[in-house]
């Protein structure tokens, strides 16, 4: 495929060909991601509907299946309102600061043993850095709107994101200690061996749970959606946005949910690895059709992401919203002490070569 495109473009200078191939790969990642975001909103409405004994969307297309497309079209034709007192440039810059990182972080996520756009050595550091930029989008959106609700929402949201980022960072340090590498491919390969038993979620269980809960808080999802808090500050930092800029915020939030799910799968659930590989005899994986299905591959990665996304929706349907002081208490007084203690325990486990995860060391 790549050779074919290269030969097709051979009249161009080689630098251009490289860039065009990279662009094609990016499109191959971004388009399905956009589609996944669209249908995540549909899944959310259907699943929460079912949990609350409602039907969810049913009108547009078969069983409402074209609803996300209709929503996107509707938002496209809505007026973009820029409040008179807003800082126009910053007001329009803020959504870009959120969507850019939410998409760009996918550059280093390995989908399969070979399928990764940029196999960089500092992958995890890059993800930590690029996802931190999102908070600028939130704070600039709130400030540039020049509205009280937006400012209050932005302050709350920024303080919350920043607090949970610390717990998240500590959880990442745990993964690093276990894997001994910043490269996502190496992190996944470190979890090979005895199927699901070898996944890092077992020795890192507290960090895994904290990472995922912090991820929910980072994306401002229920039950940590104080930033939106419809009942008190209407919609938080994006109250003044309408039409496409609002759609971009929405897209960024859902893209971030998928990103958090993907990162959790890669770091704690062995990414593309099959939960059965290494547990069943090799002959099982040579059965036609069934074998490749049970063996490691990109489909396991997608299944794991889907499970995490289901948790996001489940949380939203189940838990009442936290109070703000409870959110901050959970982040600072519960998660940070637990992660620090667990890093010390983990250090001992790694140096002692606890089998089956760290026995190679």
């Amino acid at each position: 495929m790549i050779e074919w495109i290269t030969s097709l473009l051979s009249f161009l200078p080689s630098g251009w060909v490289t860039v065009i191939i990279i662009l094609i790969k990016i499109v191959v990642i971004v388009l399905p991601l956009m589609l996944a975001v669209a249908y995540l909103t549909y899944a959310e409405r259907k699943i929460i509907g079912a949990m609350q004994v409602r039907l969810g969307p049913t009108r547009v297309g078969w069983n409402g299946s074209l609803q996300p497309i209709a929503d996107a079209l509707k938002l496209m034709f809505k007026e973009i309102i820029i409040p008179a007192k807003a800082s126009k440039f910053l007001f329009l810059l803020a959504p870009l600061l959120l969507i850019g990182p939410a998409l760009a972080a996918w550059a280093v996520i390995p989908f399969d043993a070979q399928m990764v756009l940029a196999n960089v050595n500092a992958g995890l550091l890059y993800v930590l850095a690029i996802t931190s930029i999102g908070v600028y989008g939130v704070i600039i959106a709130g400030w540039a709107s020049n509205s009280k609700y937006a400012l209050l929402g932005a302050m709350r949201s920024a303080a919350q994101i920043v607090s949970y980022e610390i717990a998240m960072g500590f959880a990442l340090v745990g993964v690093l200690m276990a894997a001994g590498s910043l490269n996502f491919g190496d992190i996944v390969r470190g979890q090979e061996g005895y199927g699901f038993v070898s996944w890092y979620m077992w020795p890192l269980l507290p960090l895994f749970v904290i990472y995922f809960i912090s991820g929910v808080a980072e994306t401002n999802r229920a039950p940590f959606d104080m930033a939106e808090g419809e009942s008190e500050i209407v919609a938080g930092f994006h109250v003044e946005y309408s039409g496409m800029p609002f759609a971009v915020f929405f897209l960024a939030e859902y893209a971030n949910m998928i990103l958090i799910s993907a990162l959790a799968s890669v770091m704690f659930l062995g990414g593309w690895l099959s939960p059965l590989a290494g547990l069943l005899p090799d002959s099982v994986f040579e059965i036609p059709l069934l074998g490749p299905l049970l063996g490691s591959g990109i489909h396991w990665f997608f299944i794991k992401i889907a499970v995490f996304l289901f948790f996001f929706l489940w949380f939203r349907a189940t838990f009442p919203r936290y109070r703000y002081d409870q959110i901050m208490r959970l982040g600072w007084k519960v998660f940070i002490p637990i992660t620090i203690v667990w890093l010390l325990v983990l250090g001992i486990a790694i140096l002692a070569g606890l089998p089956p995860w760290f026995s190679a060391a």
Partner: protein
Amino acid sequence: MLENYLPVFIFILVGVVVGGVMITIGFMMGPHRPDDEKLSPYECGFKAFEDARMKFDVRYYLVAILFIIFDLEIAFLFPWAVVLKEIGMFGYAAMVVFLGILVVGFIYEWKKGGLEWE
């Protein structure tokens, strides 16, 4: 080595461009009928009576400062965590001392009520 980062750089540009294109489409497709009421900041049914860029609680500022300290600490832990298996017990002990100092500060801040929100 460094050319591995070219796709990352291009992806960042593409991410921003995607957002920019979407907003531009919105500007082209949508109507433009602004009026005074529509362009005023959202308020529950009455005219805004003061500027929105008001004073806010100092605790947000405090959280930001604490965040910098802890985030720096995580940045220090990263290289240590990668080579932990090579540096062994000595490296571990050094990090315990480092974390110990930080935890003392953390306890002080906790006792002083720097983490209280109500």
